[in-house]
């Protein structure tokens, strides 16, 4: 393979401002959809998890529980690409809605999808918090919801942060299926636009992999930092690191 030629071709294309802009917009679309999708997912997941762990003496929580079970089954049971296609080409036209940008559909579908996954992560997080915390909250007269919101969920989120990071990473990589509904994300920008100009795919694929890789590295770093911030009430805070002593 003529690597120098290939790289030159790629750099040549990328020297055009038009393609640089295309790539950056694609990158931003990918990040935006992943972040907003995750945020929606966390909200939905938290609500579902709360419904799942709450006591079910009354009828309403029991009905909600069934609905949540069905929801999780549907969104975990079908591929996200199929969900995107169904939402964009079947559901929206069926409801007679027109002119919704594909990006927004992407955000919503990714949010709904990741909500199903986050709900299970969140449930394990909520279960990891000692029941005593809930009892203490209730004993001073706070309601179930208030105690959940102010005491249990913050502690649960701290516990599940590494797993949420996992979800975020897989989300950002999954966004490449957005090309199915013609969203110009990182993948589309690089492969369908940049690479197609010179009919040269090798370098764009490698660059694509590198960009995703760097993105994931950055996210990993950010989550580490967030973990440290949230660990402020941990016992290990402020403890000096144990230094290895030289044995002479």
């Amino acid at each position, binding site marked *: 393979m003529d690597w120098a030629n290939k790289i030159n071709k790629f750099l040549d294309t990328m020297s055009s401002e038009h393609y640089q802009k295309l790539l950056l917009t694609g990158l931003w679309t990918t990040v935006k959809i992943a972040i907003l999708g995750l945020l929606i997912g966390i909200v939905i997941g938290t609500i579902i998890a709360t419904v799942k762990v709450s006591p079910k*003496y009354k009828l309403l929580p029991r009905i909600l529980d069934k609905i949540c079970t069905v929801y999780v089954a549907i969104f975990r049971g079908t591929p996200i690409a199929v969900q995107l296609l169904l939402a964009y080409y079947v559901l929206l036209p069926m409801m007679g809605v027109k002119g919704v940008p594909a990006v927004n559909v992407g955000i919503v579908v990714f949010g709904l999808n990741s909500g199903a996954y986050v709900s299970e992560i969140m449930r394990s997080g909520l279960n990891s918090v*000692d029941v*005593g*915390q809930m*009892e*203490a*909250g*209730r*004993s*001073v*007269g*706070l*309601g179930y919801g*208030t105690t959940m919101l*102010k*005491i249990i969920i*913050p*502690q649960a989120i*701290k516990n599940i942060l590494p797993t949420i990071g996992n979800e975020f990473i897989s989300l950002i990589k999954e966004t490449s299926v957005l090309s199915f509904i013609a969203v110009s994300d990182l993948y589309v920008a690089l492969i369908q636009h940049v690479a197609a100009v010179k009919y040269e795919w090798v370098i764009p694929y490698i660059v694509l992999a590198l960009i995703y890789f760097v993105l994931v590295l950055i996210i990993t770093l950010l989550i580490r930092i967030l973990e440290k911030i949230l660990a*402020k*009430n*941990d*016992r290990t*805070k402020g403890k000096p690191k144990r230094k290895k002593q030289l044995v002479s």
Partner: protein
Amino acid sequence: MENANLLEIKNLTKSFGELNVLNGIDFTVMQGERIFVIGPSGSGKSTLLRCLNCMEDPTTGEIWFNGENLADLKVDINKHRRQIGMVFQQFNLFNNKTVLQNITLAPTYLRKKDQNKIKTANFFKKIANLFRKNKKELAPTISAKQITEEENERAMKLLKRIGLEDKANAYPSTLSGGQKQRIAIVRSLAMNPKVMLFDEPTSALDPEMVGEVLQLMKDVADEGMTMVVVTHEMGFAREAATRVLFMDEGLIKEDGTPEQVFDSPRDERLQEFLSKVL
């Protein structure tokens, strides 16, 4: 209001599935009484205590407090729980809150919530007043900021009282067991409860730290707080109690002053129990 009935428990039973833990409990807690519940493990002491503020919903029976039956599921239990303090064996301080926030969280939040209700009511009154000849007076309100300041000040006073004001901004994980439990007691006190329930408050503590918690409990008792205490500290029960209940097999087997219960026990099981623990 001396000798007023504060809590009235009538024919209380509690079962977990097949297991009957409480088999019909009747007793009354009077204002200012310090009731200590003793008994072997598995006798239902803790369950009884936890039923008093419906932490466990009673299976049958009635718990009368403030003229309402707490065992009735329709009663707004949160409203009553504000006036029933509870101290747990495992302290249960909110791990994600500082010591100060632990104390102020509930009173601040609940007072603000009440204020918001008053403000909403005032708003509608104001609108109605536009069309009224005889204007109705608006209820007095205080700002959210003022509530926060007041509660913080009160919490600091309480912390000063137990000598932990320098820990106000520390997180519970950095405290010793004794400190945690004293803060847990103060957290309950911050709600100005009518009665306080203690569920084996010293059982999870190092022997060294038991003293400081008992001292605080004594101080609280000396202020006239009504208390129901489940404990294994027989010495402390004898010293601080006005009344001792002995429980076994989900029933109150003996009920009397500490002298009666400890010095001349009538129940056979109680005699056996005391011979083992004293």
